C-alpha cells in the first residue's frame, strides 16, 4: 500500500514537472499598449542615456531654480536640511567610508553621503528630480529645468564646470567619482558573515 502511494505521488510530481516545463500558454488577457500610452508613462532614464528628453541646462541657469524650489529643504548650498544633503565633494578621491576615508577623516566628524561622494551615475539625478521633485510639487519641472538643476548639482559637487550644459548627449558621459566603488551583492547565505 505504502509503495503504491509512493508510486502515485511520484507520478503526480512528474506530471506537475512536465506541466511546468511545457511551453506556458497565453490567456488572451490584456489590451495592446499603443506607442502613445507607453510614451506618456515611460519617464525613466538609464545610465546609457536611454530615456533622456530633448532640452538643455547649465549650472548658471539652475541656480535660481534651485534657490526657489530646492533650497527650502536641501539648504542654500545643498548642505541638507529637512531633505538630504546633496552637495559635498570631500573626500575628493574617495568616498565617505572604507579605510582611505578613515585615514583622511583622522578622527574628525563624519561627512554626509552626497551626490559628489556617493552617487554612481549622473543620469540618476535627472531621473529622480524629474519624477519626484520638488517635494512640494513633484513631477512639475520641465526638461530644461531638470537639466539645469542636474548641472547645478554636478557643478556644486565639483564634477562639471559652471558653464557646462547638460543634455541628452553630455549627461550620460559624466563620470561620477564613486562609480568604481559599487559592486554586486556577494552575500550567498551559508556560514560566512558578509
Amino acid at each position, binding site marked *: 500500500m505504502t509503495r503504491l502511494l509512493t508510486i502515485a505521488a511520484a507520478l503526480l510530481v512528474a506530471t506537475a514537472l512536465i506541466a511546468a516545463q511545457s511551453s506556458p500558454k497565453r490567456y488572451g488577457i490584456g489590451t495592446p499598449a499603443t506607442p502613445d500610452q507607453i510614451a506618456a508613462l515611460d519617464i525613466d532614464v538609464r545610465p546609457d542615456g536611454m530615456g533622456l528628453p530633448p532640452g538643455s541646462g547649465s549650472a548658471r541657469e539652475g541656480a535660481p531654480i534651485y534657490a526657489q524650489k530646492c533650497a527650502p529643504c536641501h539648504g542654500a548650498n545643498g548642505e541638507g536640511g529637512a531633505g538630504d544633503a546633496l552637495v559635498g565633494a570631500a573626500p575628493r578621491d574617495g568616498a565617505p567610508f*572604507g579605510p582611505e576615508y578613515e585615514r583622511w577623516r583622522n578622527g574628525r566628524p563624519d561627512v554626509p553621503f552626497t551626490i559628489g561622494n556617493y552617487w554612481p551615475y549622473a543620469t540618476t539625478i535627472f531621473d529622480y528630480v524629474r519624477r519626484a521633485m520638488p517635494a512640494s510639487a*513633484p513631477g512639475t519641472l520641465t526638461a530644461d529645468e531638470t537639466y539645469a538643476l542636474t548641472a547645478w548639482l554636478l557643478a556644486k559637487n565639483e564634477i562639471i564646470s559652471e558653464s557646462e550644459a547638460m543634455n541628452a548627449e553630455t549627461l550620460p558621459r559624466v563620470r561620477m567619482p564613486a562609480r568604481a566603488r559599487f559592486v554586486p*551583492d556577494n552575500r550567498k547565505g551559508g*556560514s560566512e558573515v558578509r
Partner: protein
Amino acid sequence: MRKTPGLTRRDVLTTTLGAAAFTLATRSAAAQETPLADTTKKWGRLPNALGARSPVETPKRTLNLPTSSRTPLQDLHGTITPADLHYERHHSGLAVVDPRTYRLLLHGMVDRPLTFTLDDIKRFPATTRVCFLECAGNFFGTREETTPQDVCGLTSQTEWTGVMLSTIFNEAGAQPRATWFLAEGQDAAVMTRSVPIKEVLRDAMLVYAQNGEALRPEQGYPVRLLLPGIEGNASVKWLRRLELSDQPFMTREETSKYTDPLADGTARQFSLVMDARSIITSPAYPQTIEKGFVEIRGIAWSGRGLIRRVDVSTDGGKTWKTAALQQPVLPKAHTRFRYAWQWDGRPAEIVSRAVDETGYGQPDMTALRQARGRRTRYHLNPVTGWTIAGDGRVRFGVERVRV
C-alpha cells in the same frame, strides 16, 4: 448615537418578530461591546456588518519616523499580521488610486506591450502565498526602553493573493535577452526599482489581496509587486508600469539609497535578499515577569528560504537550547518559535539566534560591523536579547548590539 437607515429597518423588523430581547439588542458595535461584569444577564448585540476589535485590545503601529510605521510584534500571536497593523514605508506618502481607472503597463523587451485593468489581472490564474515583507532598514536599538516593535517592527507577514509575474511576462512575450525589469509605482515618488529577473521570477507575484481581502491602500491598492524574501522597497506599491530591459536603470533607490557601504571601501549594490534573523517578542520590554514558568516566544525568518533552527539562550549566550518551531514552517516566512523556561528569579539575559536552510546563522553586531564597517545602514540583523532584572523587569539588551 448615530443611526443608519439599515439599523432602523432592522430594529423595526425585529420588533415585528415580537421578541422583546431582540428589540433591546442592537447591531451597533460601539454601544454594546464594552465589557460587562456579568455577560450572562443581558442579550448582547446582534450580528453586524463589520467587526471590530475588543475595545480593550488596542494594538497600534508606532510612528518613530515620519516615513514609516512599525508593526506591534509584541502584541501579535502566530505569524500573520492583521492588515491594519502591517508596517508602512512610503517614499512620498500614500497614493489613493481609483481601481476603476487603474492600468498596469507592461512594455520594453516584450513581443507584445500590454495594458491590464484590475479585472484583467484578477482573471489570470490566481495563487496564494504566505510570506514576510521586511524593510531593508529594520534595526534600532540604542536604549533599554525599546520594545520589539521599535527594535525591528518593519517586518510583517501576510497571506497574499495574486498572479505569478511569470504568467504576466509570458502573456506579453518577454524576450530572452531581458534580464532586468523596472517596477514603477504611481505614488508621488513615482517609486522605481530595477529587479533582476532570474533571481526573482520563481517567486515574484502581482498581488491584489492581503489576508483574504483587497490590499489596504497603504500596501499598494489595487496592485503591488510582491518579491518574497527581498527587501520591501523593491515590492513596489500602486504598481503602474513594468519595463523589461537588458540592464538595470540605476534609479535613486538602488544607488544613493538601499546600497551598503562596506569596510573595504566598496559599496554593495542590489543587496536584495533579507538574511535570517529572529527576535524574542515575549517576554520583552516593557513587561515584568514573575518567577516560575515563562514561555519564551518569538519569530524567526529568512529571505533565503526555511528557518531550520532557532537557538535560545537564557544565560546571555553562554549556553544555547533549541526552541520548538510552530509547524508548518514556510519558506521566506515568519516562523513562530517557543521555548519553555523556568525563571529562578535571578538576573538573566534571554537571547535568540536563527539558522536558515543555507546554514546561515544570525550574526552578532560585532561580526556585522567587522564585515561591513561603521557606516552601513541597511540589512542589519544582529542577534538581540532582553535583560531580566531580579525584580522581573525586562529591558532591551543594549550592550549586545553596541559596537
